[in-house]
């Protein structure tokens, strides 16, 4: 196996809409959205646990739908709205989901939290009154190793109630 090193990596200018801000940047074409967010835009709120699509930690919203940033290429996302955890709050006011997660202890180490918050936000925007099973279904791609999920379910229900 010969190993190739791409010394002259092709770079492209990208125009991305991240959390409502228009960003232009020059990046290597093969960089994933996860890498561009964390390294080029310093939006390190988006985390990673596998970088292979297996854990959901890197979830962001693309046009309001949860997708895995470790499996997305920014070049395919131009003109689409990207939302990260940094875009959850409005100004210094936290999103009701964020408040509920904090109040109920739904974030322990907090590492899975950004992805889970975003999946939950997409759910609540579609369904203001999700049943517990609907929440489980919607979040089934996001693993958490700390909480056992119970507090997360409770926090989403609390936020849903407050948002109605």
């Amino acid at each position, binding site marked *: *196996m010969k190993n190739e090193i791409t010394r002259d990596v092709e770079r492209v200018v990208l125009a991305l809409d991240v959390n409502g801000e228009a960003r232009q940047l020059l990046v290597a074409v093969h960089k*994933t959205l996860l890498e561009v967010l964390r390294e080029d835009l310093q939006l390190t709120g988006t985390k990673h646990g596998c*970088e*292979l*699509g*297996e854990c*959901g930690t890197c*979830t962001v919203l*693309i046009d309001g*739908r*949860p*997708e*895995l940033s*470790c*499996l*997305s*290429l920014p*070049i*395919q996302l131009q003109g689409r709205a990207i939302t990260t955890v940094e875009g959850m709050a409005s100004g210094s006011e936290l999103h009701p989901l964020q408040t509920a997660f904090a109040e109920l202890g739904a974030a322990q180490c907090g590492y899975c939290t950004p992805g889970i918050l975003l*999946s939950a936000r997409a759910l609540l925007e579609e369904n203001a009154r999700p049943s517990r099973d609907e929440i489980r*279904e*919607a*979040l*089934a*791609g*996001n693993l958490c190793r700390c909480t056992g999920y119970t507090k997360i379910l409770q926090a989403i229900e609390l936020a849903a109630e407050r948002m109605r």
Partner: protein
Amino acid sequence: MAEEHGARAMFVAGGTDLFPKLKRRQFEVETLIGLDFLPRVIRNGSTECAIDAGVTLATAAHDSHLQAGFTGYAQAAGLVSSPPLRNAGTIGGNLCVDTRCNYYDMTYEWRKAAGFCIKKDGDICLVAPSSPRCWAVSSSDTAPMAIALDGVVGLAGPEGDRELPVSALYRDDGIEYMAKRPAEVLTGLRLRKSANTRSAYVKLRRRGSIDFPIAGAAVAMELDGESVIGCRIVLSAVASYPLEAAAAEKFLKGKRLDQETIREAAELAAKPAKPLDNADLSHFWRKRMVRVVVEQAIQRVSDQRAGFGG
């Protein structure tokens, strides 16, 4: 364009199968051809439904017409991996998803340590070392269902456009698992059925989400009251291609669906399945479970007929 770049180019739709494999260096490509330009529409009819290849699995799973008329297909799409992945993954990509093997779906470093196998970089099969071929497993959830629902794919290539039944899209080989030409783009899928066709998909996996199938049964049946007029039973994840259970299909034709018949049909359907030790859980157990999933799928079809929902 694909032809110009030859073997070093690949199409990418949602990228959910391709990107992990690129990262693990299972594929080495110079050029990726994005398929975002393809349309993404579902055109519904009563006995036929045309789905563009770029439609996401989530859209297909939530489409109410598909849910009602092509139930098994919507179920299969909704059982692929996890919600965020289904928002990106496409139905076209799902039909083309690479075959899997737990000696192959590993990082470059792991494969180097294990010794490379024929599917990539090596010259033996680590599952069946005496065999000259690769036994990687067809792991698409929707492909068996597309076959059961008499699906036809549209292909567009440098030599023109053509249609191909989904049942002819696959080959019994873990490496050259697709019968389409590499430069051909899959543009869409047409599913076909009669007014009285019911369908269901049952998937077996360890967890409620994320996991690939380790066995699965896609069943579509045309029913006249109690009796079976025609039926297709296609298994997932037990061979290198979606395995059609012809003997069981033949057996069911003209029969009334009672418990005994369902059990016998499932028995027949499971016979040709030969899972190997290259997916989750033991292959002995998986082999025994094939019968169970087929039975469950037929049972679900039967329940739909009786109006139990589905």
